[in-house]
């Protein structure tokens, strides 16, 4: 899995209400529709600024707050290819993997707004093309790579009839 795109940078403690405000969550199961409101309280019109493949860059504790899966789904359906952050809140992290949104822990201090990045998940390499630098990545546990490769947890279950982490 390799992605190319530019960086959209946010700060620390980006919570799930920022990612997709609670007031929209009951309205629809149509994630494409929800995606139009992604990050809008932090960056009005964010959805329109994303080109398919772009990255959301966070600081520490990205995705803190609610357990609602609409948060990673709204990001995924906004055509963001991956979220890179110094650390993630645990429920968001699980949900991202389970729904097939790649999440990468790395030193995002080396990435600025608008930097062009190439992220190779399998190789565990982030290349900051704008800065001509590579950023080391904390590799995902094998369990999570397996779920991501299968296209999320539901697809993993369909394939194996249960957990298969061998």
């Amino acid at each position: 899995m390799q992605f190319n795109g530019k960086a959209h940078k946010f700060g620390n403690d980006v919570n799930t209400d920022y990612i997709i405000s609670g007031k929209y969550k009951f309205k629809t199961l149509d994630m494409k529709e929800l995606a139009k409101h992604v990050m809008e309280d932090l960056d009005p019109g964010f959805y329109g600024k994303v080109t398919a493949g772009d990255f959301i860059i966070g600081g520490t504790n990205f995705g803190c707050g609610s357990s609602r899966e609409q948060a990673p789904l709204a990001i995924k359906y906004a055509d963001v290819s991956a979220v890179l952050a110094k650390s993630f809140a645990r429920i968001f992290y699980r949900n991202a993997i389970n729904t097939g949104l790649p999440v990468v822990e790395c030193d995002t201090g080396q990435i600025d707004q608008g930097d062009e990045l190439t992220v190779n998940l399998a190789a565990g390499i982030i290349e900051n093309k704008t800065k001509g630098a590579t950023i080391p990545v904390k590799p995902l546990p094998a369990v999570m790579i397996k779920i991501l490769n299968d296209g999320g947890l539901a697809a993993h279950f369909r394939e194996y009839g249960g957990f298969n982490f061998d």
Partner: protein
Amino acid sequence: MPMTITEKILAAHAGKEQVVPGELINARVDFVLGNDITAPVAIKEFEKIGVPDVFDRERVTLVPDHFTPNKDIKSAEQAMLVKQFSKKHNLANYFEVGRMGIEHCLLPEQGLVGPGDLVTGADSHTCTYGALGAFSTGVGSTDLAAAMALGETWLKVPESIKFEFAGVLKPWVGGKDLILYTIGDIGVDGALYQAMEFTGPAIENLSMDGRFTMCNMAIEAGGKNGIIAPDEITRTYVEGRCKRSYQFYQSDPDAKYDKVIHYDASRIEPQVAFPHLPENSRPVSEAGNVEIDQVVIGSCTNGRIEDLREAAKLLQGRKVHKNVRMVIFPGTQEIYLQALREGLIEIFVESGGAVSTPTCGPCLGGHMGILAKGERAVATTNRNFVGRMGHPESEVYLANPAVAAASAILGRIAGPGEVE
């Protein structure tokens, strides 16, 4: 090898003699839950998995509590999906409006979760049940779907932080203040991925309701679970209530912790968490002059009978400030009825407050008390993120029910001592 209470419960559910932090386990779940926001997504995922039925109709419940009584057509359609699924799979527990309560008040009250359980719920405040000495954690809808289908989940065994609260609490200080103080100290990611084990004399003397409040907010420090070792207070609560057998686990005295943090609880004042993070807590005496428009008393954090009693003590014979609207949400119908019998509802109405049927309502900016641009609320809820209760430029201040009641009376953030 010595283990913490969290490790013991996880080991028991993974069929292992012992587990160590960092280990990935596949564990049996005793109970799984979802609500009207998370369950519709889970139902879609459940159908994708393609199993005919849930793993156990007695151990899955979907509580329509967030946007109910249905706020509008869209929320009615979401709640309908929950109802249809519950009927189709003949789930033993379905709570329609009128019997419904806020999930994390309702499930312990109904005896559906108990000590020693492993519970996962598609709601971040599922960590509440740790107060019973259970391992309980929030997950997302896909995890819920998988657990509904299989009765299993994968978990990484967390490291534990032990919090020791020494001393005797000051008047008007309770579980809410202890947890806000703790989050203020360690930060909103201070326990990221970790188990928060609350111990010490102040915890041993804390009521069940106060313990639920503390464990409820473990997630606000990034914690995977909050947990309190069960004791006689727990036993009194669960006896005759729990519908399944339960087991009391204790941490070994020489169990390994990532950190042990000591607090002198006798020095902790009622706390207020300023916008826009729960970690912005400070003693109410240092709040300054903050005028408010709304007070919310209720939620899965502070919607229990003790919380209502505490608020009523201050509101009895007093009036809500003319510029303030106060809305009260008993956590369940049973709590509502108890409050009615004790005369608390009468006190609230006479003081000029509005009393609602149980719902999560304004806590997540859903309905029943949304803030306009520039408005401020004191709430006994758990999150004060930007836009959480309404307009992105509104503000939420988190506090205990006594501070909320005192603030309602004075029209500004105030400590209980100012009205007594």
